[in-house]
């Protein structure tokens, strides 16, 4: 059942909220060891909430919420009051927020029930969900492989049906690449469409929270719930939440295909599946046109300079004083800061803080950080020109399907190149939907993304719905251990 169908069945009294919640909790208990996707299961809280939500549904209070009674998993970098939020880091192990992120308040008001917190790369820094303190998330399609990252837990739980919906965050591809690797649907919203209040900051000018689900309608429903203006996030700029219709009409829409995205290094199977997805949309009346995106070669470089610069500043707050890990070996205040950070952060986080400190330091600022900000402007301008011509752009998400756990972990440059097709979307603040579009010979899922102009989520959802109305890739579920 889809998330929307679960809610409808509850409202029609065919199911109770408690039955749904207990059913999922049971599956999580039995199967979480397969993927290691849940870091924390909020068993007691979920059962208590189920009773509350059932009462609200019974009185008709939640009649307008298409997701009332639906369980959800939350990436562990989104603050949940009373539920541990560790960012998969030793630095925040045991940290229990005393406030909710904006998105958590919103989904609770819509009658959704949090089942627990989901594994990820430490502080969302990675593309494979291998760097967290509790170990790698395993891909439910082949447990020897990564689930992608950094929202690997969020994609893996949806793929293995341990929850119908999940929240992830996307700074350079962290919703889209795991969705592609796990064969599920997701949306990276326009920057400013969803409040970042309560999301643990990695790179503030790039971070955005978004939905991951089994199909586009479930994701769109969740995006409607979590989007909207929040006084506490000055960059949340939309006046009211998105309202998506049910259109599948794509006739006359113009979609551009960046020719050079398909030339170097991409696996043939991925290339063919994405091009075939474009043809599927063409058959429904979309006009496809090819173009070149020369800036592709510079995206990853710009992204890592800017993301690391912002991360080095954002992570300065972890000093062992007000919350988080404090070193037992510190005797002076200076040692509290330095030793707590050194013992609390993992290697990838330290690498990015060091790199960020470098590109911002006197003598190197102009050559790296300033240069990257200028190239960011060029990338943004290129997209603006493209959207005068096209309604959206179709692109691969990754060059390959999910790779083996441990395969890239010792080569940061290779790992960073994972973000080749995704990071420019964050640099320009644009929305993108990721959809499953095939499987490789080994049976691993392939995904593609539709990238739209700022705040054109409605068009993206329409095109995604049109695609899923004539394909069934999104209905396939991973069976657990396929290896």
């Amino acid at each position: 059942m889809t998330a929307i169908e679960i809610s409808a069945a509850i409202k029609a009294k065919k199911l109770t909220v408690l039955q749904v919640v207990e059913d999922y909790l049971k599956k999580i208990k039995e199967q979480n060891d397969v993927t290691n996707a849940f870091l924390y299961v909020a068993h007691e809280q979920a059962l208590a909430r189920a009773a509350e939500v059932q009462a609200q549904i019974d009185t008709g209070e939640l009649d307008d919420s298409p997701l009332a009674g639906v369980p959800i998993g939350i990436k562990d970098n989104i603050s949940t009051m009373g539920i541990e939020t560790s960012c998969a880091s030793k630095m925040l192990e045991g940290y229990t927020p005393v406030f909710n992120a904006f998105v958590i308040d919103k989904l609770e008001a819509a009658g959704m029930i949090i089942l627990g917190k989901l594994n990820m790369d430490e502080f969302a820094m990675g593309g494979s969900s291998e760097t967290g303190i509790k170990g790698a998330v395993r891909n439910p399609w082949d447990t020897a492989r990564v689930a992608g990252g950094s929202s690997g837990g969020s994609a893996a739980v949806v793929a293995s049906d341990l929850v119908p919906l999940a929240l992830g965050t996307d700074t350079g591809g962290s919703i889209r690449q795991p969705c592609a690797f796990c064969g599920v649907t997701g949306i990276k919203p326009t920057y400013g469409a969803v409040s970042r209040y309560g999301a643990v900051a990695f790179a503030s000018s790039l971070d955005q929270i978004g939905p991951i689900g089994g199909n586009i309608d479930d994701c769109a429903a969740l995006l409607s719930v979590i989007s909207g203006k929040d006084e506490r996030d000055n960059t949340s700029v939309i006046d009211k939440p998105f309202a998506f219709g049910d259109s599948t009409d794509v006739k006359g829409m113009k979609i551009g295909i960046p020719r050079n995205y398909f030339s170097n290094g991409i696996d043939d199977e991925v290339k063919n599946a994405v091009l075939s997805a474009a043809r599927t949309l063409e058959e429904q009346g979309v006009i496809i046109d090819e173009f070149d995106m020369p800036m592709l070669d510079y995206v990853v470089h710009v992204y890592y300079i800017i993301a690391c610069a912002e991360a080095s500043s954002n992570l300065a707050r972890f000093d062992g004083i007000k919350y988080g890990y404090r070193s037992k070996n510190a005797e002076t205040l200076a040692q509290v800061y330095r030793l707590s950070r050194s013992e609390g952060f993992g290697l990838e986080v330290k690498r990015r803080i060091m790199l960020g400190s470098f590109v911002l330091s006197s003598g190197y600022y102009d050559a790296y950080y300033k240069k990257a900000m200028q190239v960011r402007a060029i990338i943004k301008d290129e997209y603006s020109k493209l959207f005068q011509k096209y309604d959206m752009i179709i692109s691969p998400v990754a060059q390959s399907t999910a790779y083996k756990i441990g395969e890239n972990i010792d080569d940061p440059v290779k790992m960073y190149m994972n973000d080749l097709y995704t990071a420019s979307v964050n640099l320009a603040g644009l929305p993108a939907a990721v959809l499953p579009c095939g499987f490789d010979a080994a049976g691993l899922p392939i995904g593609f993304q539709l990238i739209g102009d700022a705040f054109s989520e409605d068009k993206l959802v329409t095109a995604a719905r049109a695609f899923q109305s004539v394909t069934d890739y999104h209905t396939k579920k991973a069976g657990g251990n396929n290896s």
Partner: protein
Amino acid sequence: MKIDKALIDYLEELSCLSLSEEEKIRLTGDLESILAAMDKLNELDTVGFQERNHPFDGVNSFREDIVLPSLERELVLQNAPQRNAEAFVVPKTVE
């Protein structure tokens, strides 16, 4: 570019970290290869381009100056690694 020991020590200071010798060796190599890759940006002529530090052009967003409640002290102290009844506790900072 070449990352020497003095630069690694300086970055360690800026980053407020104390790295082990093993980490220093590892990160020296990593930073060298990452920065070598970053140098690709020098191929682009960016003269005249205004730096962009944000996806959208900023518009100042003003709001009324209204006093709202803050988190209660006990809540704020709940996650402290070391505390007393009313404050965070840190090592002595003055002689």
